[in-house]
């Protein structure tokens, strides 16, 4: 029944070693988002895709990239993770921009 699936649930990576987080959806939603949530903070939008159109938030570091090869999948690439990038990364989808979001369970990233 899972509709937005994030893998893995927990990811440990080394400082400076590239890491990729994945998200897939079975809802056929047009929009996919990536949020970063640090401990005791609200989710912060990094970027989103509307279909194939990529939209980056102005304050998203260049270290963060994203790919959406098809409607169902979206990836978050962190090129050189720093200790400050340790967080929960949340993928969400919506049928229309700003519409009711469906979130995945998140991937908790630890940087060592």
């Amino acid at each position, binding site marked *: 029944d899972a509709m937005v699936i994030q893998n893995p649930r927990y990811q440990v990576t080394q400082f400076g070693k590239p890491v990729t987080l994945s998200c897939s959806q079975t809802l056929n939603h047009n929009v996919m988002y990536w949020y970063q949530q640090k401990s005791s903070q609200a989710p912060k939008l990094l970027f989103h895709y509307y279909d194939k159109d990529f939209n980056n938030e102005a304050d998203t570091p260049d270290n963060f990239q994203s790919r959406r090869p098809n409607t169902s999948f979206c990836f978050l690439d962190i090129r050189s993770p720093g200790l400050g990038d340790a967080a929960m990364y949340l993928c969400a989808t919506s049928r229309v921009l*700003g519409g009711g*979001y469906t979130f995945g369970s998140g991937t908790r990233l630890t940087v060592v």
Partner: protein
Amino acid sequence: LAKTTQPISMDSYEGQEVNITCSHNNIATNDYITWYQQFPSQGPRFIIQGYKTKVTNEVASLFIPADRKSSTLSLPRVSLSDTAVYYCLVGAPGGSGYSTLTFGKGTMLLVSP
């Protein structure tokens, strides 16, 4: 994007009704109000969305006054499992231009026995 203000935290007891109010003074004409619930180590979960007056579903009610500058999420007869962070978001679904939803600080609801 309309900014929202919510209480940082609220306490309640099992069986009570809880009302969480959100202020959004600069809400735009096309904006809807959406509430999400988040448990620790999970993604937020959609609770309810509305534009004006009152919306009710199986888990909550949303009250929006005529001026739409605030909204109140009402949770009837809360249980321990309702302990979570509740976020109020304002945005225009499907609107032209840039209308993604921005999370505010949220309200941490603690339900005690």
